[in-house]
């Protein structure tokens, strides 16, 4: 069973539908017992970091996620879920879970790509340059694009660059995928990214981390 963590952060049904479509048993839940019993965890989310952290703590899920990570359970962060596994988010000045060293920053405005002024949020299809072939990113065409919607981006702390698993260019390169032991997290939405996104989700659902 795969547990999708429900902490009231936006519409989680699209992730559930995609995983179910791939033929995996999945449950959207905020029950600590169900999350502890799950074979793996998907941590999605849309919304603001401050509210999301407050809800996670109120539901007793913040510590549970840290425990699950320490126990070696495979975890996939998506979008806001990814931002929340960093140390800190500038959004609502929020201390976060600290599973990846670094902070989440707002895209600077105005943001330019040459003469072109870029719009914020970064919304639409963009490439991800995967740095090494992590098993969760296997069998994905390098030209594949993923669907992004965000105004804040993760920045891995100096010295921890080895955790960067993929980068995306939007005015400048930012870390759109990170990986640490049994944890993988992406800024984009694999559940809305067509067949390439489904491949990523399917890879995660079968992934056995080495550690």
């Amino acid at each position, binding site marked *: 069973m795969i547990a999708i963590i429900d902490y009231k952060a936006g519409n989680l*049904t699209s992730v559930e*539908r995609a995983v179910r479509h791939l033929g995996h048993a999945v449950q959207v839940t905020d029950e600590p017992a169900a999350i502890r019993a799950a074979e793996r965890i998907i941590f999605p989310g849309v919304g603001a970091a401050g509210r999301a952290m407050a809800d996670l703590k109120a539901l007793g899920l913040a510590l549970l996620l840290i425990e699950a990570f320490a126990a070696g359970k495979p975890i996939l962060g998506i979008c806001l879920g990814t931002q929340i596994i960093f140390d800190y988010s500038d959004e609502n000045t929020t201390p976060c879970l600290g599973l990846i060293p670094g902070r989440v920053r707002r895209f600077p405005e105005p943001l330019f790509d040459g003469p072109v002024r870029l*719009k914020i*949020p970064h919304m639409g*299809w963009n490439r991800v340059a995967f740095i090494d072939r992590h098993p969760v990113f296997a069998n994905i065409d390098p030209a594949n694009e993923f669907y992004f919607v965000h105004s804040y981006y993760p920045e891995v702390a100096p010295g921890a660059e080895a955790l960067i698993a993929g980068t995306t*260019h939007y005015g400048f390169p930012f870390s759109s995928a990170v990986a640490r032991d049994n944890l993988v997290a992406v800024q984009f939405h694999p559940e809305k990214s*067509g067949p390439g996104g489904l491949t990523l989700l399917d890879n995660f659902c079968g992934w056995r981390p080495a550690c």
Partner: protein
Amino acid sequence: MLSKRIIPCLDVREGKTTKGIKFKNNIDIGDPVAMARFYYEQGADELVFYDITASSDKRDIMIDVVRRTAENIFIPFSVGGGIRTVEDMRRVLLAGAEKISVNSAAVKNPRIITDGALAFGNQCIVLGMDVKKVKASTAIPSGYEIVINGGRTHMGIDALWWAREAERLGAGEICLNSIDADGTKEGYEMTLTRMISEAVTIPVIASGGAGTPEHIRAVLADAGADAGLIASMTHFGTYTVQQIKEYLHQSGVKMRMAW
């Protein structure tokens, strides 16, 4: 760098598309879910459904279409038509849509934009604008006026002002439809699209008038649109989404070419 988007638009009445895909061998797909799947497989970047069901007691049919679509395609899609309240928005989003499009409801009650953005985030709220070229006047300084009821009712609202106002109210995107160009297949309204694209910082989807891939190239590359809405070009089998994207890619427009 972001890719420009190609967005097929499906008009749905009581659960059936009003224009099915007509293939050369005369097979006609009238099921919106099958059409959505067809365009998804061809590489459409997003889809739009407009519910043109007249009677409100048949609106639940659309919720079912949205749910079945969300189970079958895994790209963003938006739903417009008949959405008047935050509760209407919630039902469509929970059924699996990524975005909501509001048009005449927002003209009559602009507050719906803000309420929707606060409840679901700006990125969920698309403002649909139907626009007609008129003589520039004190009331309509840009010479483009907001119309509703398919262009039959002039609202006395300047389109340029309304686009800026909608962004201020919290709209995350604008779908800009020229009533004059709509159905002509002679190209998008370039002047209008350029004017609105330059006036707002949110993405603009150009709509109305697409007849050839070159029309789409022009509006994306020369008029500043972020996306092109298409309908009859692909519904009648004249082009496939893939052919259009291939043309744009060859012409130097950044496109998503792998899926």
